[in-house]
């Protein structure tokens, strides 16, 4: 989110320069960008669509509506929604504490937030299994349960909301809150009427990125979930299973569903970004 809005800002700043060399360079640049995007993103996507379409409409429908696939799609969406909501709350709180409080070790905590982004997700999964698995040193065993899957998703998506809310809080003018106070608003009222509305776009866009990430998460989940069909199997794992068992067409069909979901979320994020630009304008 932060990146995309920065990109938008850069876009509006950089005006095309005149001159023939400039024009030629622009054409070249456009060509390179188009081919690169095509190679890396569009062609694989097209291949995927082609692959799923090759299996035909009936096959598509029967694959998607098979009880196992439906269950895993449902589980994935529900868990993603739940963890996203939880992380929206916790992430906002953490960002608040990191910006407004000062305590020893704050910088350390601040850098630890990015850990889920920095370490390989399988490693994260393994760590979670060691910590909350059958041999848990703290006596909490959630391995092979929905709670375990939720935990893994919470872990990998934690930074999204924190990192999207933090800069907004940093830039927020303290005088605005003081103005509200001098107008008679209590702390809670100031938060609800002034602070929260200013943070909401950032919270929602961070949350939607986290949601998109949860939908497709594989590495962190695969170990702790145990992949019990109808109980703990998420979509990404279902797809992997189909490929493993040689059903590449089926895998492609499920992938397309996942793709559509993610695309929808990204569209929403973009809408939020525009809304936020309007608010800040």
């Amino acid at each position, binding site marked *: 989110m932060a990146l995309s809005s920065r990109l938008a800002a850069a876009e509006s700043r950089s005006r095309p320069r005149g001159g023939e060399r400039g024009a030629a360079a622009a054409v070249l640049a456009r060509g390179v960008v188009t081919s690169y995007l095509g190679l890396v993103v569009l062609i694989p996507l097209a291949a995927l669509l082609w692959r799923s379409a090759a299996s035909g409409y009936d096959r598509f429908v029967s694959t998607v509506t098979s009880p196992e696939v439906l269950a895993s799609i449902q589980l994935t969406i529900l868990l993603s929604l739940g963890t996203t909501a939880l992380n929206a709350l916790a992430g906002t709180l953490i960002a608040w504490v990191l910006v407004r409080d000062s305590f020893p070790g704050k910088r350390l905590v601040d850098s630890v937030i990015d850990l889920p982004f920095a370490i390989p997700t399988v490693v994260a999964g393994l760590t979670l299994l060691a910590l909350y698995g059958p041999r848990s040193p703290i006596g909490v065993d959630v391995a092979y349960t929905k709670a375990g899957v939720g935990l893994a998703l919470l872990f990998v998506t934690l930074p999204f909301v924190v990192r999207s809310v933090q800069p907004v809080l940093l830039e927020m*003018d303290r*005088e*605005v809150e*003081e*103005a*509200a*106070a*001098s*107008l*008679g*608003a*209590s702390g809670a*009222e100031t938060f609800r*009427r*002034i602070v929260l*509305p*200013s943070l909401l776009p950032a919270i929602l866009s961070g949350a939607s990125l986290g949601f998109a990430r949860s939908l497709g998460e594989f590495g962190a989940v695969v170990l702790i979930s145990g992949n019990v069909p109808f109980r703990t199997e998420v979509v990404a794992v279902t797809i992997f299973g189909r490929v493993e068992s040689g059903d590449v067409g089926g895998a492609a069909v499920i992938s397309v569903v996942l793709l559509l979901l993610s695309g929808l979320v990204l569209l929403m994020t973009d809408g939020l970004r525009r809304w936020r630009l309007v*608010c*800040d*304008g």
Partner: protein
Amino acid sequence: MSITVDRVSKRFERFQALKEVSLEVPSGSLTALLGPSGSGKSTLLRVIAGLETPDEGEVSIGGERVTHLPPQKRGVGFVFQHYAPFKHMTVWENVAFGLKVRRLPKPEIHRRVRELLELVQLEGWAKHYPSQLSGGQRQRMALARTLAVEPSVLLLDEPFGALDAQVRSDLRRWLRRLHDEIGVTTVLVTHDQEEAMEVADRIAVMHQGRIEQTGMPSEVYDHPESEFVMAFLGRVNRLGGALIRPHDVSILSRPTPGTREAMIERVVHLGFEVRVEMLLGDGSPLCAQLSRDEAAFLDLRQGRIVYVDVGAGRTFEPSQLHRAAS
């Protein structure tokens, strides 16, 4: 309502921003806190508003001690230099904020907001967002928002500091008229002596966390009690230990007892007035200001030798503060 500040001190980490400051703001007055940047004006205003807690001393509003009341309970209106608009709300919602917080009935809110928007001449802008307003309009919106809650005192922190010269002087005059109309006790922070002289009926001059002098504008200008106040409130010449204002320097064509010889370096025409820049015999510069007619009568020209009377110059006992500083 009157404001009383009694021996208030405030320290930020290692910096003593206020040193036993006492101030009386009479009910219904428009008092300016005037001083250079960093002299503690804003801190004092924020202490009155309850946005800062003093380390020592008391603040009373209308005779009631408010030192330990939060800003919500003080009935003060505070206007910030950078307007502090609620960006996600329209002009209408901004002005209505304090009334909504007070849970006033809707028709009442509508009536009050309409009146206030009229008062600050923003009737046509109710549905706009603060980002669509000019600086001057934003500040008027902020003022309307503050006046909406009918504060017993109005505190303005460099309200025109971020505006350009023309808008600034318009708003100044407008504020003065507004004050005459509604008569709410007002404290205005400014570092601009002209602004203070123009709008305020009382001025408190601040310097290094203390109030050096309080009085009517003419009092502080004509009878400064310290060198700092004299120098801060207008141009001065320094002759040895004495200070004299340019318009108190008399220029004569012939020497008389007590006059000193000076050579005219430059004559600057400033419309109705003429500024004469001179060098005294000992090489020190001296500046005089007189009317165009006087200058023409004396036939002042560059290079001429004239005789100046600087007997109106004033010397100040170094105050404790200055002795401590040197």
